[in-house]
């Protein structure tokens, strides 16, 4: 859109950082938040202002997905920065943090620069996450100073855990020199052993190797202890078990600087979703029991879990249409995250403000990037949500290059309808 200013009229502006939740007008000028206009007081508007009617809609700080796999460089057949950020914009996200398990992995300036170059024309801000270990091999530290100066905002070997405890300890320590948060994929490989689904009734019924909850909790316990030893914060990725939630809760009660994220599928689905050997319900960590799902929800409510992040993991049909134990792990999630989070709001489990914290305020804070608020002067990254819009999540509507989602064909209520990045519209689904 060509207009240099944008007036979002009569929307419910929800801005928890500024303790704001009211129906007002929001004015953006030259890509920045300019003013919150309440009541009938009408400021003098710029000449070429685009006015948009936000009646009945929520206007929130641009959402940030801090756990996304964009597959560029090296696996562009299933996603790239362009398609992934288009999917992100359609999901209401103005920024994503992309994981380094690309081909080659992102453990150096060159790959970070390649990602950022592709991101220049993208539909969302892209914050690269660099590897914890060189080559993501789990043996040596990567060059954190180089990664940070190249533009990486965090470190992770996501896709696999750091098996060597001493390496993770040193990584936690050294990352402190560059203020890079460590995002830990907590998994005890000796217990998960290339399992296919959660260890429980479904693994018996389907005859699939199970991954016990302990594979996650043992690793979370270890990672928390290492972070305490290194006196550094740590962020636990994709929490899926009640046990991990309890450990993180206890660590926070003791004052340890820990943050944690979960993905929408962990608070929406259980391991029953793999019935019929549905590989679009296969991911790592796996979908767990109903008790775990409830514990995740409790964690979202009481603050144990700080972030909802999708772990958007595109895979092609030839990687999913295989024997279940051979199929790749992961599902796409950018375009369903807000919708699934809204289900918790509709059920009265979390408030709209809490949803904004989980999807914008906290990811911005943990990554140390701008975002999560609508304070005048900050970039105009804004997400508009229609909490009442009914729609079917069709394969045709998927903007990702991959379609591996267990939610295809389902009907939902509530979705993002307008995404604004630095004052420019990157997605619109307004009636």
């Amino acid at each position, binding site marked *: 859109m060509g207009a240099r200013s944008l007036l979002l009229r009569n929307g419910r502006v929800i801005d928890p950082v500024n303790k704001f939740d009211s129906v007002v007008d929001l004015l953006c000028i030259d890509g920045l938040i300019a003013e919150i206009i309440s009541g009938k007081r009408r400021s003098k508007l710029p000449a070429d202002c685009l006015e948009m009617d936000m009646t009945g809609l929520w206007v929130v700080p641009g959402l940030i997905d801090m756990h996304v796999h964009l597959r560029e460089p090296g696996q562009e057949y299933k996603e790239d920065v362009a398609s992934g950020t288009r999917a992100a914009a359609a999901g209401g996200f103005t920024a994503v943090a992309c994981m380094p398990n690309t081909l080659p992995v992102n453990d150096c300036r060159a790959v970070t620069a390649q990602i950022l170059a592709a991101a220049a024309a993208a539909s969302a801000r892209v914050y690269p996450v660099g590897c914890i270990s060189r080559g993501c091999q789990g043996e040596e530290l990567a060059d954190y100073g180089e990664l940070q100066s190249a533009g990486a905002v965090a470190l992770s070997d996501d896709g696999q855990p750091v098996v060597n405890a001493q390496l993770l300890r040193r990584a936690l320590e050294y990352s402190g020199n560059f203020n890079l948060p460590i995002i830990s994929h907590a998994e005890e490989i000796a217990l998960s*052993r290339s399992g296919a689904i959660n*260890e*429980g*009734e479904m*693994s*018996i*019924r*389907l*005859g*699939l190797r199970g991954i016990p909850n302990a594979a996650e909790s043992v690793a979370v316990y270890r990672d928390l202890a290492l972070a305490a030893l290194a006196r550094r914060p740590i962020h636990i990725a994709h929490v899926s078990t009640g046990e991990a939630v309890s450990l993180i809760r206890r660590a926070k009660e003791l004052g340890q600087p820990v943050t944690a994220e979960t993905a929408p599928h962990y608070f929406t689905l259980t391991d029953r979703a793999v019935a*019929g*050997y549905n590989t679009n319900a296969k991911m790592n960590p796996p979908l767990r029991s109903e008790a775990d799902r409830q514990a995740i929800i409790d964690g979202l409510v009481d603050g144990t879990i700080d972030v909802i992040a999708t772990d958007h993991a595109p895979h092609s049909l*030839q990687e999913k*249409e*295989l*024997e*279940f*134990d*051979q199929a790749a792990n992961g599902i796409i999630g950018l375009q369903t995250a807000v919708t699934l989070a809204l289900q918790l709001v509709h059920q009265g489990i979390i408030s709209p403000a809490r949803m904004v914290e989980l999807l914008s305020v906290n990811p911005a804070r943990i990554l140390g990037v701008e975002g999560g608020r609508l304070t005048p002067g900050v970039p105009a990254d804004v997400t508009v949500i229609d909490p009442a819009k009914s729609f079917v999540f069709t394969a045709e509507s998927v903007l990702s290059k991959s379609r591996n989602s267990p939610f295809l064909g389902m009907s939902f209520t509530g979705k993002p309808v307008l995404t604004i990045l630095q004052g420019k519209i990157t997605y619109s689904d307004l009636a």
Partner: protein
Amino acid sequence: MTEDFSFKHKHIISLEDLSVDDINLILRTSESFKEISTRSIKKVPTLRGRTVINLFFEPSTRTRLSFEIAAKRMSADTFNISASTSSAVKGETLVDTARNLEAMNPDLIIIRHSSSGTPNLLAAHVKASVINAGDGTHEHPSQGLLDLFTVKEMKGEISGLKIAIIGDIAHSRVAHSDIIGFRKMGAEVAVSGPATMLPPSLECLGARVCSDPREAVSGADVVMALRIQKERFQDPLLPSLREYASFFGINRQLMALAKPDALVMHPGPINRGVEIDPGVADGRNSVILDQVTNGVAVRMALLYLLMGGD
């Protein structure tokens, strides 16, 4: 059950999918086919002109031969594909294999594979009927059915019997099908073995999990042994075959706790002296070879019910 009950399943993938009426029909049909194998000319024209493909990704003596003999005795044309000599070694995916087979219009594909769920994947891509000859650690429905047939033949009724299954229950597709089948038909099933092979969630299938094999075998009408595989020492699930044989093997002492006329069963192949004492395997309670004979009859019944209708 009503006189005009007909078999409406297109595939035989899991005993979970079959009703009690379905199983009774299969058992009755098996009985009528058993006689054919005792004739000097072991042939009936029932399935003449039908194309049956055995698609075996795992080695097999009994099951494959049993299906092939069953099909040929009913005059079907059978073709065997084994993974090691197929394009699977060139990296052809299961779905592509399925599409290529389907292009040659088979009537029935019998599949054995090391990954659970593969019969479902195959069935989604072919018009042919699919029989699961063993998928990973999920099920082996024709084995379960022939075990049911054997017990019914020897004992008259399955309902109310006490079945004991001893061995690597967690990883045995035969055990899973047996538990499901025997429970559906009203028998009690107790399972036992090393705790590493006996996850508590097994109870969801309806079996009583006993930490001591003596408890499972006590008063049993049927004692079933499962093969202990050498690959089970990884994980690690077992310290040695010797330990297994000493504490979990089916021997005379253990059999003394079962009913005097208890049946001794084993899906084969047996490891003599490991999961079963040779004397017990060859003894007068053993129906292990009857199971093999009945396997042909049961498989003829399955082929007939899936293909013989028109």
